[in-house]
């Protein structure tokens, strides 16, 4: 296969970026998308040009480090698939492929296709945890959790923190990411004590990081590689209202 690539190149946070055209021959349809970028970089290195920087690590869809916008879709055309799990058989010979970084106010571009997602860390550190120190835990089976609740908690907890939801949202909202953690911990019995503060603090941090508001387009769910449901956002709104109400009720 032969591909025409249009790739966003940007030297650093402050530099002005631009799209640069590349042509890549001999693309094997069994290559992953990132292996295609490896191949391009190998070609650039042979030509003594600077390779394209892109984020990646586990290359099996779980670490959440990879992610680019491909022809306008975060992580490309397939549903429930990270960029690393996307393969070139999804593209046609001679096709032009537009590759851009995840763009959002909360995700400044660091270089080329790499963005800074540390805002997600700060949202978690604002309350996305259970305050239990090492050694304080009671015997595991002393807190039964119904099968249904455990499974629902898992569905929310499965988020890999890649940021595709933010990149795809027209408002650059981090509602899906934040709500998935709030929901997981709101429904499990072992995390009830901080339920109100958690919701309020995490949402406050999310706003502070410059992420936009959710306006219920549900695009995030479509692009989420883990299929995290927008019902988490509804749950987050409920938790926020509940906490705001109960906070003032003495």
């Amino acid at each position, binding site marked *: 296969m032969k591909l025409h690539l249009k790739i966003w190149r940007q*030297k*650093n946070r402050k530099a002005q970026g631009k799209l640069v055209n590349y042509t890549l021959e001999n693309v094997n349809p069994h290559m*992953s998308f*990132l*292996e295609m970028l*490896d*191949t391009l970089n*190998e070609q650039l*290195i042979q030509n*003594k*040009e*600077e*390779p394209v*920087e892109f984020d990646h*690590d*586990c*290359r*099996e869809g*779980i*670490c*959440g*480090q990879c992610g680019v916008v491909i022809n306008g879709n975060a992580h490309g055309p397939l549903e429930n*698939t990270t960029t690393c799990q996307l*393969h070139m058989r999804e593209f046609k010979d001679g096709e032009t492929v537009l590759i851009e970084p995840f763009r959002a106010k909360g995700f400044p571009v*660091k*270089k080329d296709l*790499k963005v*800074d*997602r*540390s805002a*997600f*860390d700060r949202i*978690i*550190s604002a309350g*996305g*945890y259970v305050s*239990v120190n*090492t*050694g*304080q*835990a*009671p015997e*595991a*089976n002393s*807190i*039964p*959790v*119904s*099968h249904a609740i*455990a*499974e629902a*908690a*898992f569905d929310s*907890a*499965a988020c*890999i*923190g890649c940021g595709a939801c933010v990149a795809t949202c027209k408002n650059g909202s981090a509602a899906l990411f934040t709500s998935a953690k709030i929901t*997981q911990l709101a429904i499990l019995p*072992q*995390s009830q004590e901080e339920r109100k503060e958690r919701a309020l603090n995490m949402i406050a941090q999310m706003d502070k990081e410059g992420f936009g508001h959710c306006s219920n387009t549900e695009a995030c769910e479509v692009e989420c590689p883990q299929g995290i449901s927008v019902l988490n956002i509804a749950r987050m709104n409920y938790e926020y209202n509940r906490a705001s109400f109960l906070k003032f009720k003495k």
Partner: protein
Amino acid sequence: MKLDAKIPQGPLEEKWLNYKKTARLVNPANRKKLDVIVVGTGLAGSSVAASLGEMGYNVKSFCFQDTPRRAHSVAAQGGVNAAKNYKNDGDSVYRMFVDTLKGGDFRAREANVYRLAECSLNLIDQAVAQGVPFGREYGGYLNNRSFGGVQVSRTFYARGQTGQQLLLGTYQALMRQVDKKTVALYSSHEMLDLVVIDERARGIIVRNLETGEIEKHAAHAVVLATGGFGKIYYLSTLAMGCNGSAIWRAHKKGAFFASPSWTQIHPTSLPQSGDYQSKLTLMSESLRNDGRIWVPKKAEDTREANTIPEEERDYYLERRYPAFGNLAPRDISSRAAKERIDAGHGVGPLKNAVYLDFSKAIKEQGQAKIAEKYGNLFRMYEKITGTNAYKEPMKISPAAHFSMGGLWVDYELMTTIPGLFALGEANFADHGANRLGANSLLQASVDGYFIAPYTIANYLADQIRTGKISTDHPEFEKAVKENKEKINNLLRIKGSRSVDYYHKKLGKLLYDYCGLTRTAEGLTYAIEEIKKLREEFYKNVYVPGENDTMNAELEKAGRVADYLEIGVLMCYDALTRNESCGAHFREEFQTEEGEAQRNDVDFQYISAWEWPGSLEQEPILNKEELKFEFVQPTIRSYK
């Protein structure tokens, strides 16, 4: 040097209790005066950083990823073992200890392995309290599944993402401490060197991966929890960034390196499909519960799998190991696959795979039942290969997976450099010559949550009067200068080959000569070839770009430069161990039936390698004799 493992006195079940009873403590008011550096944020690194932060120490946590939650613990699928005996099937700490010791082919310390099993109980409690959504039964109690090499159900799981869920629990504990400012987080920072002052570990040199800035960080103790180095084979199940650089650079500062050649080659990964391939994706071991492994009886058979009649298929695991069949342990299954592939029976376009066939299970249980058990894995298989495994067998192949070897540590997880600790996969301690499935998440977590917080405190107890360690010390300046030179050297070569070219070459040499099977002749050859490759690397590698910017090629170059040194040590290690044990299989040492022949008279020891001072000299072998007081070594048989 005489190696002292510092194993506490007393009966097996009292050793750890005795240690904790007598370990020295640090007064809460003094803890904030003590600085600890933790490198790596996987299960071991995050849990020890969070635990020390909770206790009140001043912690700095480093990782090369853009956030701690991406560390490679995240990728473990199957589960985590614990001897809770919730299934009432006769499990106990003692039984888990014996299984693990035997699984490791009696090349681990009894006291360490027992402690691992003992602390497994607390780990499940801790993870549940953190909100880790383990699989549950309908009554609300925790469920278990079984894994290879044992006869009980002791594996806790969170669907096929147990590593991710455990890591997120630990990550959240870490981020809580970051919020409380007991832990300072340095993401996108890579450790370049260890600083040793007056024979104690006193700090590290790191590179900010975004700006290229070289920074100095001082502390009273340094913890390396930097994972395994299986990526040295280039094609492996590991993440692209996994590396051996932190432990290797510590090794060159005096930390002994134990059993570097003991690498677990996992039997069920996806095969290589072309030269462009960057990694081999693992398919969970659990598939072998219902999948049958076979190759065509006729060598070089090019027919489609489904057209090969039953009588012309060789179910070689069932044939060779009738008692365990398709569930034979990982080392044995991988070797058996290689034997068939080498004999010309491999399948697939590159003839490098064997079939994993579900047709019998689908016929017996129905496709819906198989989909319920393994649906996500079948989907993943189709995503990657474009093949529907309900209709035709999967093609699988062995791939480098886990480093049983690592920095030598004593019972306190301290290396031969006082004040330098190694945790999780970065140390060698608990798995012997072969790790059992679902024990890696366990070991990393137990080291970080339940062992190191005690043993580091024991070390720090006499550091209270030391005062702040200054980064102005000449040793820091020296290390900064050396590392800047190293980086500039790499950038200056401007040759014609990419870093990956050398990494792939090295990986192939190691896989062929220091992989599933080894020979003295092959290892001797590999040592010379790797040395030549290293020379060529420093003459002809091309590292583009500059230091003062984000530069992934430069990062890779530093790691591959280290791999080219580690690879040689791996070969020496395999060459000097004239026996076969666990994952280490020397062709000269096998039974008539082709099974591993261990030699307990001459090789019942851990090889702890000492840096000789330069690459020109041969590494120095130190031995830690293993004593078995409670369980006598037996021959591992799965026939």
